[in-house]
């Protein structure tokens, strides 16, 4: 079943001089219920712009964005409120995306308050503590502020916050790009656990193709605001058809000196 659909989405931004620049050109794809969809591309390819259109943070110039029957750009009232509850975002920057003046508990429970899901303060606090435990944070730290947590812990707060309203779709925009490998692995594992625990559909945006291979069943490759190829994990990584995808994959370093040498020899011979 299709949970989310983008159809022929175009978006331009005003340029300093001359014509507006086209950042998304005729982008169309579906997100099926229960899948994890990877969106990959180099910086400036339009990944975050797509995320913003999906989250109603930006309005497309043309084309449609539909979540479970809701016309996203035009959603109002009860529909908008359901949309805001059921679609959540986790950003890249664990430093910038959390309000520094709110405690971990307030940040995590904010959605429960805003959406009127839990009017009782003590109950909200209990739920925030429960979520902290789920994402691997010590619930005793509920009254601490974001800047007293490490980058990885802040990303756990952001994930707990996104999960509080029991969303159906989670959009993650480069959620591990700023983290060290050991912490990145912890957060990736957490996302996998939460995906199972909450039955989530996930749109995972990244420039790191290895992370995308690990997490995503289906992948969309973006280049200069256009989709160049989409397919299953097996298709994209096993048998990429487009030269652009091939060049992207060939450039990713392999952490194995023997394979790296083999690949270099193959390139030299070709």
């Amino acid at each position, binding site marked *: 079943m299709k949970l989310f659909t983008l159809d022929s989405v175009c978006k331009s931004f005003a340029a300093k001089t001359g014509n507006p620049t086209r950042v998304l050109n005729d982008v169309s794809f579906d997100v099926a219920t229960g899948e994890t969809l990877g969106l990959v591309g180099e910086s400036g390819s339009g990944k975050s712009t797509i995320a913003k259109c999906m989250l109603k943070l930006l309005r497309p110039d043309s084309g449609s964005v539909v979540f479970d029957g809701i016309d996203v750009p035009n959603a109002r009232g009860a529909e908008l409120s359901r949309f805001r509850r059921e679609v959540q975002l986790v950003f890249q920057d664990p430093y910038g995306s959390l309000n520094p003046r709110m405690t971990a508990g307030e940040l995590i429970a904010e959605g429960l308050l805003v959406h009127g899901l839990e009017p009782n303060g003590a109950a909200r606090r209990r739920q925030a503590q429960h979520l902290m435990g789920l994402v691997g944070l010590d619930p005793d730290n509920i009254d601490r502020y974001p800047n007293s947590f490490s980058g990885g812990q802040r990303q756990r707060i952001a994930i707990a916050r996104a999960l509080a309203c029991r969303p159906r779709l989670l959009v993650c925009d480069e959620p591990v790009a700023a983290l060290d490998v050991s912490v990145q692995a912890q957060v990736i594992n957490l996302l996998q656990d939460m995906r199972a625990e909450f039955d989530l559909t996930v749109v995972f945006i990244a420039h790191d193709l290895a992370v995308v291979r690990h997490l995503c069943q289906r992948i969309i490759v973006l280049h200069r605001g256009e989709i160049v190829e989409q397919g299953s994990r097996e298709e994209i990584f096993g048998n990429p058809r487009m030269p652009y995808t091939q060049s992207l994959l060939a450039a990713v*370093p392999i952490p194995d000196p023997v394979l790296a040498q083999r690949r270099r020899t193959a390139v030299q011979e070709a």
Partner: protein
Amino acid sequence: MMMQPNPAGRPAPVPGEAPLLSVDNLCVSIRVDDRSVNIVDGVSFSIRRGERVALVGESGSGKSVTARALMRLERRMKATGSIVCDGRDILKLSDGEMRRVRGGTIGMVFQDPMSFLDPLRTIGDQIAETLRIRGVSRRDAERKALHILDELKVERAAERLTAYPHEFSGGMRQRVVLAMALIGDPRLLIADEPTTALDVRVQDQVLALLDEISRSRGLSVLFITHDLGIVAGFADRVMVMYAGSVVEDGDVYSTFAAPRHPYTRGLLDAVPRIDRDSDRLASIRGTPPHVFARPQGCPFHPRCDRAFERCVIERPVLRELGGMRVACHRPEPEAAR
């Protein structure tokens, strides 16, 4: 020691040849209140002529401070121990002599080229300046600048010399900074995360260039990165740093095949792979310690699955072990051969 042909197929070490760089018990400290805190805590290593060594470790482990100390760029920190490069004791040179070492014997590139480039001057000017400081005439300096941009495969190099930094893409700027580091014909290039901010395809091009140039010039390279993929493809040897110390040092083949330090094993297991599917990543529990809160004993013990009583009390020293150097009381088993 198992010596396999190194990745670039370059010459084997000459027995008895003095290393280009020898660092012995380097400590770099800052003063905090009345206390002195070692950011780099007793690091010893050497680099041979033409050898490419990767320095890896998570952020905050002290990689950049180590690199900058080699060039005496950390003015507010105190460095002790010894650094001998091409026969000269870096920590004993006068400021004037040190200025000639920078860009002369040792060249350096950083992650962010814009912090290094003057936005108001043409790049030709900036590349040539490195030589002009050394008394090279303007014409010769400009000729060499053109030549080095050619070597770095910058197209239409002559035109580019009159352009300003903002007119360049990230990859091009990194080539300009590389040109500035190489124009003085250094023996050692220190590259601190030079490709981290670049997209993979551009990164791949810059790495290929570095590979070619370091090989043709017999240049030694100290390459700092957190990307183990780059290490595997580029370096002959890898040093792993944790909490201010080198915890493992070995040739890339042995280290990747059978790391002996549990931290190195943890890092390698935590990396997702582009070349195969995986269900679950191994992860190292906890996070690297802050400089002011580094644990007693082995700095890695609170995160280590192999730790026992001794690790809590006694800091392990870096010692020879099967052709590698490892600082661990209970190393991982040797590779099955």
